[in-house]
């Protein structure tokens, strides 16, 4: 697992953002240059003064954009150089309490938008920066402000924002119609075509109806929408219904991602109750994919290792798991499809990793 947090010591009092000189230096976007160091630690000099970083064992941090917390003596690797999986957590608050939440919400909120904006402005060229939470749109004004500031200054960047779609309003439409938002994709979850089941999964009454309002506003704004559905034992049998619902009512989405469960957060303790082992019963997922294809809805499978998917449907399975939390079984080394495979989450039950079938 790639460490996202490293030990740090800094002269400064307040948290600050720094982009470490890349190796070799690229001349641009440099805010902190390496002064001295060895293989275990290094001292950098930047606008906020000197700071020392403990270097991760397996990670090269040159070119990373860090958020350094002098008081906590820690540094977050916000935007790792060369990674396609950089995601910023903008809040840990949420107004839903999904049964399988991988990142259970907290009541507290630390507003870091100014620092995160600074970090995004220092991003590698051409990056897609993920925004996640909690629920980012609980702080919609700050969120949209950050997106607009960054995308205005950096025409090469894009955002992918995960949102529960509970907070978009008619008054947002004009703002979201700005051409800047053509470079934003909203990843929005929908778990069932039946309101009651969706509401039960997200543990919020009225969530389905509110989501439909938000989707209407996003449609009016011409927003790019990625619809997301996590497969659960609760909804797997009604996935074909959901596919028909998507085709009939949500034909404007850009893509539908059907996602296998992540064994962390709430799902960890409820694994037996929630996890649907698609190796034993793939039919409803296959039907959902076929219905989507039939009606021209692009769809894909996230977190489905290729060897666990019937051959005809492997075309849908993508290498979805972020680099820093992805791992493979030992037998995977012999697999010819490893480079295209999602692999497993770092925290996936180890027994499943033993069951891979190299392709």
């Amino acid at each position, binding site marked *: 697992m790639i460490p996202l947090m490293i030990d740090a010591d800094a002269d400064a009092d307040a948290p600050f953002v720094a982009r470490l000189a890349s190796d070799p230096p690229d001349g641009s976007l440099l805010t902190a240059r390496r002064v001295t160091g060895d293989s275990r630690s290094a001292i950098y000099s930047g606008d906020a003064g000197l700071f020392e970083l403990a270097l991760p064992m397996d990670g090269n941090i040159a070119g990373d954009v860090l958020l350094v917390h002098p008081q906590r003596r820690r540094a977050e690797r916000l935007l790792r150089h060369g990674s396609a999986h950089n995601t910023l957590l903008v809040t840990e608050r949420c107004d839903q309490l999904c049964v399988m939440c991988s990142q259970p919400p907290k009541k507290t909120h630390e507003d870091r938008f100014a620092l995160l904006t600074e970090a995004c402005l220092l991003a590698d060229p051409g990056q897609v920066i993920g925004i996640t939470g909690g629920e980012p749109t609980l702080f919609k004004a700050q969120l949209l402000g950050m997106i607009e500031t960054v995308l205005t200054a950096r025409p090469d960047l894009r955002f992918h924002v995960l949102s529960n779609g509970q907070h978009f309003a008619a008054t947002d439409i004009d703002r979201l119609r700005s051409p800047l938002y053509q470079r934003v994709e909203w990843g929005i979850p929908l778990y069932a075509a039946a309101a009651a089941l969706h509401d039960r999964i997200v543990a919020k009454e009225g969530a389905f109806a509110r989501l439909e309002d938000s989707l209407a506003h996003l449609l*009016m704004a011409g927003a790019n929408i990625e619809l997301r559905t996590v497969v659960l034992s609760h909804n797997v049998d009604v996935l074909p219904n959901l596919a*028909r619902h998507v085709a009939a009512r949500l034909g404007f989405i850009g893509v539908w991602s059907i996602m296998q469960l992540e064994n962390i957060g709430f799902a960890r303790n409820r694994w037996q109750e929630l996890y649907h082992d698609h190796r034993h019963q793939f039919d409803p997922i296959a039907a959902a994919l076929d219905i989507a294809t*039939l009606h*021209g809805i692009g769809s894909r499978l996230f977190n489905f290792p290729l060897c666990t998917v019937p051959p005809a449907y492997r075309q849908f399975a993508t290498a979805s798991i972020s680099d820093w939390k992805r791992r493979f079984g030992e037998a995977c080394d012999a697999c010819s499809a490893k480079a295209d495979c999602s692999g497993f989450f770092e925290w996936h039950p180890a027994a499943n990793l033993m069951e891979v079938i190299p392709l």
Partner: protein
Amino acid sequence: MMRLPLRSRAMDDAFLLVGDSGRFFAADEAFIDRLLDDGLDVDDIAFLRRQSHMCEGTSGLGWLSHAHGLTQRWTRAGPLDYLILVPTLRCNLTCSYCQVSRAALDSQAHDWTDQTLAHVLALLDRLETPSVKIEFQGGEPLLRPDLIAAVIARCERFAERSFVICTNLSHLPDAAWPLLERDDVWISTSLDGDLATHQANRTANADATNAFVRNLDTLIDRFGAGKISALPTIDPARPPDIDALIDAYAGRGLTSIFLRQVNYHGFARKRHADSRTQGEAWRLYYEAFVRRLIERNWAARDRVLEESYLTLLLKRIFRGGHNRHVDLRNPNPMGMDYLVVDHDGQLYPTDEARMLSRSGVIDLAIGTIADGIDTARRDALNAHATNQYDPDCQRCAYQPYCGRDVVDDLARYGTIDLPRHETEFCRKHLHLFDFAFGLIYANDAPTQYSLRRWLGLAGDGIELGLRHP
């Protein structure tokens, strides 16, 4: 709760109901009665809501989604990025049904001049799109590989480019090979079925037939069947044996067959005067052909044969947004996203339009490569290039899937001012859509298997045709 419009058409054992955005289902006569009598029951209403044939009002998601679905059924022509270029009208064959009234091989006045070429290259320089598609038509374009090469060389700046050389493959000059070897060059040719039929229709003698077959097979050996698309032109009076026709394609690894009747253009207007209308014989042949493809696909699952136009119709039936096939789209704006540059530098909206001008029926040129598009002439053509407001089409269940072709009307009748159902375009497409829906609702495994493959489905677990109840 508001019910959105539905149009119906009788099928063999049920009624087809189609919404304005093309979403459809089948129901029995009792449902039609309840619909007409305002007597929908709870199940009917739940079904119609689920299928987005009813919505909550004119502001919520249901209504907006319906509106979005409607827009997906309308072509919005983008900027010009597709050119049909005719570097020469000369040809080394003399097919009886030649649609373009080709010029003699030794003619002096039927190739692009240097100036025309310069204008074409300048037009390429002005295109604003990141991609370009160019089709070289003729005559026989490979009589002038130098002109093709000049055009292709000028397109290097496009991020995406594709070139299709429409050739009879009777002669491949040395200068053609560097072009054919390019990954962005494809070949389109004619293969009328078994070789006897091909020779009778096209090549006229055994030597020419052998040369064609040799060239075709050499290309396939060298570049794979994916490099080549071929289509048969069928004379319904003398159609080839269906299996022999399929074998001529499948035996070469060519899996897509665009079965096409002799087109009522060019020399065919006189020598195949019966091609003005499609007779029952053609329709029966077409259906038998498709049914045979279905049988053969079922018998040999290792490859899927298709009739390409039927595949296009099926995709348009199930999906919005399939609006780049210029033979079937609505509206069908001309002279916008694609354009024909003829051998003499005249601009035409479609390949058929240049054929009509060449036949002396009507001059449909919309400008010249030297002076650009004559927008007044283009606007005149586009004023009625839609089925949207046609009183017949507005009542037709197939309107969302269908198109409009004013050039075809002009070719056959000299006017576009006819009741739609009296036009060949309408009769042809009514037949094809009836046939397609018959297949969609056929509940035999072989038919469903082929349809799922033609529509690109990965598996065989779902029903294609929705039924209520």
